[in-house]
């Protein structure tokens, strides 16, 4: 009898050992997070801040045990060089070799559009926080792709609302556009022109200028635009190209002669061109930290970012930081790190961000984030100019109506 009970206990122990130790004692699987940004090349100016903000968010979450308090986050960063073919190669490498469950990226919309089907094919989440062409989520829709940056349509709508108002006041009749010749520049310019046609049909587009991505010398564009004598100019030029364009245009006295409302002047440009930027310009921004210092998450983020890196965070830092926390909240709702479950959990999810409480629109996974327009002016609180008379155009007031998205998707099927 004693032998029998001893054997029974031994068998139970053997069975328990064969099943492995209790799950609470297991080191949970780490969460592999891919970052596919332009560390070098045209987009490096914006992406460095993004990478730093991601690192900060990851450290904060890992300090509490990782996602769900147990999945430590391991970051794998790749450089897209702002080239779609490189972005695709690196995305595949991140997925197949590093086994990432989510890719944060990219800088260039062309890169984002290129990696979207890869992420979908391998059922990996893709969160765009800098690249913002609306085509990333509007057409060829992927349920795995989310966007936490106001898209090109939303930004264009915000600009158009302001420009249409100004045109009426000042009696403007015609304009020209200058936009970088790639996916983002093209889609932003196209959206702006289309919206201006609807909201201010009396305005005539005289000419379009398309400098190549990476253009270093804009003199010929500046003189050609001045030769057109437009009432105003709409610009869609970003990152280092924007710095070159604005520096050179300023040296021509361009901004004193021709109004240039609503071009992208992010916090990066405000900081980098603190000494040279023309005061009084009406600029457009995607996530300026100073617009939301009343949100505790933003105030904390700015304080910590400054402590960690000794500088203020740009729009790109804010949005990449929000991207990591959007993922965290998606994982918490799914109570799983399985990308399929997280993708479903994020659908329509309301999340806390540095920019306040926002939500993902179900039809296109676009976050209901705002665009910001203001007048560049000095501020005694900062060593660089910020926006005064800041106007926040809310996401739901500026995004493309759902009916139009459905119509575009129908047209795409044909």
């Amino acid at each position, binding site marked *: 009898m004693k032998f029998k009970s001893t054997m029974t206990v031994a068998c139970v122990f053997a069975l328990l050992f064969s099943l492995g130790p209790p799950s609470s004692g297991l080191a949970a699987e780490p969460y592999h997070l891919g970052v596919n940004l332009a*560390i*070098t*090349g*045209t987009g*490096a*100016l914006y992406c*460095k801040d993004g990478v730093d903000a991601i690192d900060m968010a990851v450290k904060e979450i890992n300090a509490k045990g990782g996602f769900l308090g147990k999945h430590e986050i391991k970051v794998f960063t790749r450089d897209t*060089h*702002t080239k779609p073919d490189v972005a695709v190669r690196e995305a595949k490498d991140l997925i197949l070799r590093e086994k990432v469950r989510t890719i944060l990226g990219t800088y260039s919309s062309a890169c984002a559009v290129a990696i979207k089907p890869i992420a979908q094919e391998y059922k990996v989440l893709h969160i765009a926080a800098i690249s913002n062409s609306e085509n990333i989520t509007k057409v060829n829709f992927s349920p795995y792709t989310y966007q936490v940056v106001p898209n090109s349509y939303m930004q264009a709508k915000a600009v158009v609302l302001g420009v249409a108002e100004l045109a009426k006041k000042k009696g403007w009749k015609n304009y020209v556009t200058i936009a970088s010749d790639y996916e983002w520049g093209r889609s932003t310019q196209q959206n702006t022109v289309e919206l201006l046609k609807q909201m201010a049909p009396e305005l005539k587009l005289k*000419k*379009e*200028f*398309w400098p*190549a991505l*990476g*253009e*270093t*010398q804009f*003199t*010929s*564009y*500046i*003189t*050609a635009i*001045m*030769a057109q004598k437009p009432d105003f100019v709409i610009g869609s030029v970003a990152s*280092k*190209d924007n*710095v*070159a*364009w604005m*520096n*050179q245009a300023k*040296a*021509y*006295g361009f901004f004193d*002669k021709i109004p240039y409302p609503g071009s992208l002047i992010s916090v990066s440009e405000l900081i*980098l*061109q603190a*000494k*040279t930027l023309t005061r009084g310009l009406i600029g457009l921004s995607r996530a300026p930290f100073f617009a939301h210092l009343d949100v505790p998450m933003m105030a904390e983020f700015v304080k910590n970012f400054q402590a960690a890196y000794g500088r203020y965070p740009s729009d790109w830092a804010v949005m990449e930081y929000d991207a990591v926390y959007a993922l965290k909240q998606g994982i918490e709702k799914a109570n799983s790190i399985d990308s399929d479950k997280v993708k479903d959990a994020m659908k329509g999810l309301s999340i806390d961000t540095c920019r306040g409480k926002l939500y993902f629109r179900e039809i296109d996974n676009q976050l209901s984030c705002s665009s910001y327009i203001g007048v560049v002016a000095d501020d005694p609180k900062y060593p660089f100019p910020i926006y005064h008379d800041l106007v926040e155009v809310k996401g739901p007031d500026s995004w493309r109506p759902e009916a139009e998205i459905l119509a575009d998707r129908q047209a795409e099927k044909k």
Partner: protein
Amino acid sequence: MDPALIFSQFLSGLSMGMMLFLIASGLSLIFGVMNILNFAHATLWLIGAYFCYMFWYVLQDFGFGLWLSILLAALTLAALGWLIEVVLIRRVYSRELPEQLLLTYALVLILGDLIKLTWGVDDKVIARPPLVAGPVFFFGVPFDSYFIFVIGIGVLVAIGLWWFLQKTKYGHIVRAAVYSREMVGALGIPVPRIYTGVFVLGIFIAGLAGAVQAPVGSITLGMDMAVIIQAFCVVVIGGFGSLLGTFVGAIIVGEVYAFSILFWPQGALVLIFVVTAFILIVRPWGLFGTPMRT
């Protein structure tokens, strides 16, 4: 259209042409004399821009800070060029073109990483001194005053190179070495030293070009890749190894670009490549090159 505006566009094209001439002249000189196709030329140009930023950062409080920084950047890059020639380039003079290209392309990657390690990935911006920060007016039309300086430097370098190659004894030896390095060597002239001198001169001009470019926009990684293509277009149009050809080719590229932006902005870049392809087909040795080099 207002003639003053046409003139302004011409000046824009000229300034772009001079910027390209500064980059391409060193490339063409090195190829013309040494038969080395230096793929890393634009990367060295970029390092020149970073050197300029480095010196300017220290000297920015002085009125002459930028001008001295430009000169120091060119000289420092020339010293780096000397090191590269002595350690690497002279070992591939007698090798085939693909091997030379491989070596200089490897240099592009190595130097690119060295830039990243030395200056980081942040963009660098040089604030121009007030003298060249605003516009000058021609017939009432504004033009960026800094580009007057660029045009001036371009013309000075062109005249200086012409004078050196045509009017000095050393220049005559360099030209002789283009046609027969054996004969020059047989006359007791140390050809390797001539080559080192030419390489250092070419890189000095690249450094000057990079430093002159630095205050135009921001200095950033990857700028070199966009520029090298246009520099190759210039030397293909003008003819590899021809100083006059490089000068004319640069002006052609600059003006074609400027006026196509004015009249047909969508096709600006395409037109440059169309011209380049046309020259390659009808006159592969370029407008002022010699068939011997094809």
